[in-house]
């Protein structure tokens, strides 16, 4: 088949890129080669439209053992000779087309990124965005995605300890499925994704290679349209049982000392793993594709090269120690086949039955090597001008505050996610400290130490839509706040950047400014970016227009509790404990769930936020927790103070009696989402000490009331029994999702 610029275009490459490839090779590429370039130069693998901006993010820190982009995931020193590898990744487009397999393989892929470094995954989180919950299609997607995540993670045996689920019309067609994995490894026992040593054998390990996921990375790097369902073969199929065997066998194989380097196969399969490992080690590889175990007969060379069949690893072993590796994989009944060797050519040369079918310089394929790097244009989106016109005075105050509260709490974005998380095994490996004692961040103890990890995923995309710079700062800040109020110290982040088409200047503006906000906040909190993933081309098609999804830069943050007993939980503990709000209230309903639910107002500026104020608050909350003054702590986020109080009350069925502040609109005081506020409770005998501490450190605070009885009382008005609110909170999601 003659490769023309048209063929290249069909595979997602521009005319310029085709020219460049011809120049690199010194000839016209054949179809196998152009296929390899198309996946390796896709946004998914090359970051060509994002890397310029990603490099502006803070990527250095005392605890970082591996810099962003250097290995498959970031690696953070957590003391006691241990390191933590963690990363978040998107599987949006596959999940939009085939929710069950798309989500399942998203989970499988991110765990592989962690254990390919030699770390054992100990926890998983996920961040999900769906469209309108009342649409039948949304329900279908939610059921499929949740079952996919559950079935894969549950069988693989790693607990899903945290996550978030939001519903918004902007995700009607283009859902977001971001999966995060966190693993532990002894410092010095990691494995690098590199190829070294001319003559060393190259093995493929794990599942046989099939035709699934052909051009998957290219598919993920194009607009999702109504024709996308035709791309179903681009979606991979997962087998968590194989992955579990691959995990155990890989970790055991590392211990033999016979491994030079290892990389999992995700996007772009053999092409990606072989070229990235070779480029990194400054070597080449000769591969013999007929030796690759395949699932079906007569696969073509290009299909074997770029198949995204799951549960596979590429391993470079030490020559002469092959038998050690083979023995481990035999023990686990996994296929381990030598398919080639390391060369000094610098090229990935693929042979099929003796014929050279592809010959490409490894370096030309990869990020930081020959892959293109683009500066894209951006301009401020027109809608942002409109948002500025919003004023709170346009919003009538509710006549019946209790009714307004009920309307708010029934929002699919505020109700309990129990229907979702009960389908995930959250307790396997017996480390999850927050299952029975919920904290704002998930707390996972590290066996054999006095430490625990705190982890969270956060992004309120309505805020980012309202102002990408401020919204991204809030996403980082909320993640840090969740870790701090749980008793942890924020350490580092991984990010999953879900945006629209980068060739759309308005969508690219959102990307650029979100990166700026994220970078500024990460610098402030001392939490460098260790890696992550960019997912462009997320958009939904409406009758008259195509719109990018809300910009959604999901933050996955890691924190450490040096002392496991510092864990602070959200639940009210005792009758008469005093309830305080730390932070400053505002007459602010901007971008709140309340405005959307009760008034149908979507477009406003972001809520009040000041980075210095946030930082100051967090430093002081850390102190209060270390002084063991606090009984419970919960940050105020979606749904405002009212929602936060209810969530704390539900845990032990303890009600509350509070008063609002007459200087503020009641709806704004109770339902507003202005940032940098935390609800704490304190035993009455520690109140004086708390107040003197807060005064000494110049922290703004308000006494709200006390933990009391089993009812909700606000300004002496009875808002009803807590159990009534809990029923709405607990049962609404299952009512919506279990009905057709």
């Amino acid at each position, binding site marked *: 088949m003659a490769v023309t610029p048209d063929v290249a275009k069909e595979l997602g490459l521009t005319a310029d890129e085709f020219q460049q490839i011809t120049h690199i090779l010194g000839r016209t590429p054949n179809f196998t080669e152009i296929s390899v370039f198309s996946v390796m130069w896709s946004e998914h693998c090359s970051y060509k439209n994002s890397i310029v901006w990603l490099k502006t993010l803070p990527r250095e820190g005392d605890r970082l053992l591996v810099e962003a982009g250097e290995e498959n995931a970031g690696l953070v020193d957590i003391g006691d000779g241990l390191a933590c590898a963690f990363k978040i990744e998107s599987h949006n487009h596959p999940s939009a087309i085939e929710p069950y397999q798309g989500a399942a393989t998203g989970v499988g892929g991110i765990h592989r990124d962690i254990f390919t470094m030699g770390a054992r995954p100990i926890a998983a989180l996920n961040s999900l965005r769906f469209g309108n919950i009342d649409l039948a299609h949304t329900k279908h997607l939610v059921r499929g995605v949740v*079952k996919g995540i*559950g*079935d894969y993670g*549950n*069988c*693989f*045996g790693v607990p899903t300890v945290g996550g978030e689920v939001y519903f918004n019309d902007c995700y009607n067609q283009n859902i977001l499925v971001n999966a995060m994995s966190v693993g532990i490894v002894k410092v010095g026992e990691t494995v690098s994704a590199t190829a070294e040593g001319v003559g060393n054998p190259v093995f493929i390990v794990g599942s046989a290679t099939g035709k699934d996921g052909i051009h998957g990375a290219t598919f993920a790097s194009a607009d999702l349209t109504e024709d996308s369902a035709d791309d179903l073969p681009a979606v991979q199929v997962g*087998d*968590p*049982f*194989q992955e*579990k*065997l691959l995990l155990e066998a890989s970790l055991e194989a590392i211990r033999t000392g016979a491994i030079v380097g290892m990389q999992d196969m995700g996007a772009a399969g053999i092409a990606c793993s072989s070229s990235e490992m070779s480029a990194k080690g400054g070597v080449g590889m000769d591969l013999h594709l007929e030796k690759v175990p395949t699932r079906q007969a007569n696969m073509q060379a290009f299909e074997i090269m770029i198949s995204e069949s799951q549960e596979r690893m590429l391993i470079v072993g030490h020559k002469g120690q092959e038998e050690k590796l083979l023995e481990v994989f035999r023990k*686990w*009944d996994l296929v381990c086949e030598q398919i080639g060797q390391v060369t000094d050519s610098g090229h990935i040369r693929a042979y099929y039955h003796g014929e050279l079918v592809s010959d490409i310089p490894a370096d030309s394929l990869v990020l930081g090597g020959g892959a293109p790097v683009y500066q894209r244009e951006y301009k401020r989106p027109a809608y942002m001008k409109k948002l500025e016109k919003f004023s709170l005075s346009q919003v009538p105050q509710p006549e019946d505050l209790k009714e307004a509260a009920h309307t708010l709490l029934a929002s699919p974005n505020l109700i309990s996610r129990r229907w979702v*998380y*009960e*389908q*995930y*095994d*959250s*307790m*396997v*490996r*017996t480390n*999850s*400290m927050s*299952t*029975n*004692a919920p904290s704002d961040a998930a707390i996972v*103890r590290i*066996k054999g130490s006095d430490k625990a990890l705190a982890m969270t995923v956060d992004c309120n995309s309505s805020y980012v839509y309202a102002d990408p710079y401020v919204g991204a700062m809030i996403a980082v800040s909320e993640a840090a706040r969740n870790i701090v109020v749980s008793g942890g110290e924020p350490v580092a982040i991984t990010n999953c950047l879900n945006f629209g088409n980068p060739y759309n200047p308005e969508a690219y503006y959102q990307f650029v400014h979100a990166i700026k906000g994220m970078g500024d906040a990460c610098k402030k909190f001392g939490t460098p970016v260790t890696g992550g993933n960019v997912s462009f081309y997320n958009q939904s098609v409406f009758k008259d227009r195509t719109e990018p999804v809300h910009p959604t830069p999901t933050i996955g943050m890691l924190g450490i509790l040096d002392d*496991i007993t510092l864990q602070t939980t959200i639940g009210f503990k005792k009758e008469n404990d005093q309830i305080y709000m730390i932070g400053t209230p505002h007459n602010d309903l901007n971008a709140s769930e309340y405005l959307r639910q009760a008034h149908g107002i979507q477009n406003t500026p972001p809520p009040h936020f000041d980075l210095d104020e946030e930082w100051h608050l967090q430093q002081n909350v850390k102190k209060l927790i270390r002084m063991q003054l606090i009984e419970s702590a919960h940050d105020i986020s979606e749904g405002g103070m009212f929602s936060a109080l209810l969530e704390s009350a539900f845990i032990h069925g303890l009600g509350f009696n509070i008063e609002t502040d007459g200087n503020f609109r009641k709806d704004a005081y109770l339902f507003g989402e202005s940032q940098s506020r935390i609800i704490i409770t304190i035993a009455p005998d520690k109140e004086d000490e708390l107040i003197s501490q807060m005064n000494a450190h110049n922290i703004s605070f308000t006494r709200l009331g006390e933990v009391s009885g089993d009812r909700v009382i606000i300004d002496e008005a009875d808002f009803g029994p807590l159990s009534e609110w809990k029923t709405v909170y607990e049962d609404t999601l299952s009512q919506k999702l279990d009905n057709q």
Partner: protein
Amino acid sequence: MKFGVVVFPGSNCDDDMVHVLGTVMGQEVVRLWHKETTLPDFDLGDCVVLPGGFSYGDYLRAGAIARFSPIMEAVIDFANKGGYVFGICNGFQVLCEAGLLPGVLLKNSNQRFICKNVHLKTMTSESAVTSAINPGTVLRIPIAHADGRYFADHETISQLKDNNQILFSYCTPEGDITEAANPNGSLHNIAGICNDKRNVFGMMPHPERASELLLNNLDGKGLFDSFLRTAHSHSV
């Protein structure tokens, strides 16, 4: 006494069980690889544990393939001689498939995987895993399974009841055995049973996930305490 925790391909609660038996309970624990054909130096007072997980990916049917593992011949032989065998979750499914315990475990009635704390009523203290627990005691222990709906024919159920073989039943926090307290549709809310010789035990809930204060739940530890007490009184 010592414990042996069987590791099938796909077992994923084996580490948790080794941790609780070894680190928390301070007992001698060995891992038993599924390809082995004998139990090394096991006496009748010792105990083989079949842990939770997804042996062989739960392909075909949960526990159906594991039952044919080489190690299972040795385990069946050990059980038939009177040795203690304790299966949890997937281990319970394997024991039913192997015929060491009566009945089967079907898909949960809601057709979904369920992970949550449930309440169990202790139905008898006449077993090695409940000897230190007063009958009627309500324990809060998590379940995590997709196939936990206990089912058996009428005659088997009658035998289980007549012989006092039902160890745990799903109940309300107050100890009432009700339909609403039944998480998976098990017949008679059955959560755990033993065989008629009372040396083979199986249950769907995970006591090993509820045996440490750090995890804010100690309700499962009573089962391991019971075991040690029983084993100790046998060896005296």
